[in-house]
């Protein structure tokens, strides 16, 4: 969930999306140090568990997190009804195939890369690598962050036309130097793959 955090500002330009506002609030430190990576990971998990137990603490912490702010928003109209559309699911909940490389949890700025997940994957082939939210419940039922079975049911029920062959897992909590590569490299790469697959609509879910 702690995606798009930002330590430094001003270096990223988005064409046709308006100007980026800067928010100079105190940075909420939710990170371990590199030298204490193990302790840091444990600390992050404990804080994440605390936020699940006491959601108001999480909301309070989020108020102090710096985000990127925008004045304008891109907009694409639906080109066809959902019942005829090709849909892809993209999550920032740290979901990936068990056989795939886990996200790098030792980098305090997060891991901006993504994992491809075939949309026909069984739920027991999937797992979550993410220390910045408590995924105990999602480990029991991954649909609460990555509703892959619900979407297949909606295709059977003709609410959605079809599912794209490839879905995508990112981790949230991307900060500082990784923001630019997240947007310019990895998000751009996903866009190219969505185009290859003829995707009409994309559903996004956080962790």
């Amino acid at each position, binding site marked *: 969930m702690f995606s798009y955090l930002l330590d430094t500002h001003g270096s990223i330009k988005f064409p046709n999306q308006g100007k980026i506002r800067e928010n100079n609030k105190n940075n909420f430190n939710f990170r371990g140090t590199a030298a204490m990576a193990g302790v840091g990971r444990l600390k992050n998990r404990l804080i994440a568990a605390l936020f699940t137990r006491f*959601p108001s603490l999480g909301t309070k912490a989020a108020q102090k997190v710096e985000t990127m702010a925008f004045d304008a928003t891109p907009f694409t109209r639906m080109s066809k009804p959902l019942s005829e559309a090709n849909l892809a699911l993209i999550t920032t909940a740290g979901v990936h195939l068990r056989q795939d490389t886990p996200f790098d949890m030792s980098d305090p700025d997060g891991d901006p890369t993504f994992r491809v997940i075939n949309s026909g994957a069984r739920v027991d082939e999937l797992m979550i690598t993410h220390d910045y939210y408590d995924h105990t419940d999602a480990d029991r039922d991954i649909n609460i962050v990555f509703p892959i079975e619900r979407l297949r049911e909606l295709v059977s029920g003709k609410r959605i036309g079809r599912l794209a062959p490839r879905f995508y897992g990112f981790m949230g909590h991307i900060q500082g130097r990784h923001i630019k590569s997240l947007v310019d490299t990895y998000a751009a790469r996903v866009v190219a793959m969505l185009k290859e697959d003829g995707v009409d609509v994309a559903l996004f879910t956080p962790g």
Partner: protein
Amino acid sequence: MGLIQRVVEEHGIATIGVSIVRKFSEEVRPPRTVFVKWPYGHPLGEPGHVNQHRAVLENAFDLLETASEPGIIRDLPYKWKRETYG
């Protein structure tokens, strides 16, 4: 999440996001958002509560199909663990 959503939308693919941190959506301003005031790690709800997951998805798809302007954040009325879902 919103940053990636913006990039995808900008390249001609309509997007919808489920948010659990309203502040992030207000600042990043993704194209379309449904917000649930639920604990982190539970954007679709509770494990095994299929009708709850469907309710969030149906709200998301309704906004996807009907939004006529960018940046709408629709607050879903569901209270955590205090609702009955069809």
